[in-house]
């Protein structure tokens, strides 16, 4: 009489499988962190004297209630905004900026330090479009800074910033910080919003 009980399932490796799954999920799950575009609002107190800025140094971006874009008095598509902003910032009209690659157009900005982007929106403008425009303008600055950093230090600006934040980065942080600040003064972010 053969005694045939069902063979016991070997559960010895079950724990291994469980740990494998655990590790898989641990690695693939990211705790969501918010990210966004950082801005600094201008302080409330108005400066007494009016600063005179030449018209050619201002790059006006108007957003109307129908989400249409008017850049320097011309209608423009959102996708062309970045290139137009780069061209304006990098123009180097007075020739004082030796790293600029612009056209040296006399009717456009003098140098990146003087160039100001002015953004005005209506109350009816949707937030989505506003963010898209902000994003393109920030992107213009970032591209110029990347190019400048790549030319001077052989590394894009965004990578330098990532290194600076990375605690495991082996290099000299103070020197890196000085480099970052240098790039920031080469292409200062002068983005003003009109109320």
């Amino acid at each position: 009489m053969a005694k045939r009980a069902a063979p016991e399932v070997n559960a010895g490796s079950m724990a291994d499988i469980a740990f494998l799954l655990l590790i898989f999920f641990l690695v693939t799950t990211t705790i969501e962190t918010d990210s966004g575009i950082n801005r600094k609002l201008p302080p409330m107190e108005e400066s007494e004297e009016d600063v005179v800025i030449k018209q050619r140094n201002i790059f006006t971006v108007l957003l109307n209630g129908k989400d249409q874009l008017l850049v320097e008095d011309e209608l423009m598509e959102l996708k062309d905004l970045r290139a137009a902003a780069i061209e304006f910032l990098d123009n180097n009209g007075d020739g004082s900026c030796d790293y600029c690659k612009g056209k040296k157009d006399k009717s456009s900005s003098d140098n990146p330090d003087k160039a100001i982007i002015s953004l005005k929106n209506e109350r009816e403008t949707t937030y989505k479009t506003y963010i898209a425009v902000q994003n393109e303008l920030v992107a213009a600055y970032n591209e110029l800074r990347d190019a400048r950093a790549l030319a001077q230090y052989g590394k894009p600006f965004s990578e330098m910033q990532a290194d600076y934040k990375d605690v495991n980065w082996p290099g000299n942080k103070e020197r890196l910080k000085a480099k970052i600040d240098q790039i920031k003064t080469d292409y200062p972010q002068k983005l003003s919003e009109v109320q």
Partner: protein
Amino acid sequence: MSKFKKKKSGDMPAVNTASLPDIVFMLLFFFMVATVMRQNTLKIENNLPFADQVEKLDKKDLVMYIYAGKPSANYVQYGKEARIQLNDDFASVRDVAAFIAAERASKREELIPFLTTALKVDSDANMGLIGDIKQELRKVNALKINYTTKKGSVLGRD
């Protein structure tokens, strides 16, 4: 004859449950890691816009959240215009200053200059509301703001 008499009285081997704790712990760990504690219950639609030039907003304890958007389906009685939400309830623009003051009071004094205001605004809200919020923030000198967005391309998406 004896061939059909094999059935012994309920000789099924018990299922080995030795690894049950492992599985339970696995699930526990997974949920511990993946869960994000929600601070506020949203009463508004909050479909954030897309942007790709984003910076991370770390140090969660130094962030004050201001939500804005159209009241969600359960709260249609509040109208269809975009509203501000602070903490767990609808608020008006006037309440922003008080909210910032309360948030500041709850933080240690030396941390106050590092506080950032995160604006989580629905992509269909209009800028009038945001302008008003920004004006209020300037009045109370909360100048560091962050437009919270989803990561993605701004072009070709609606």
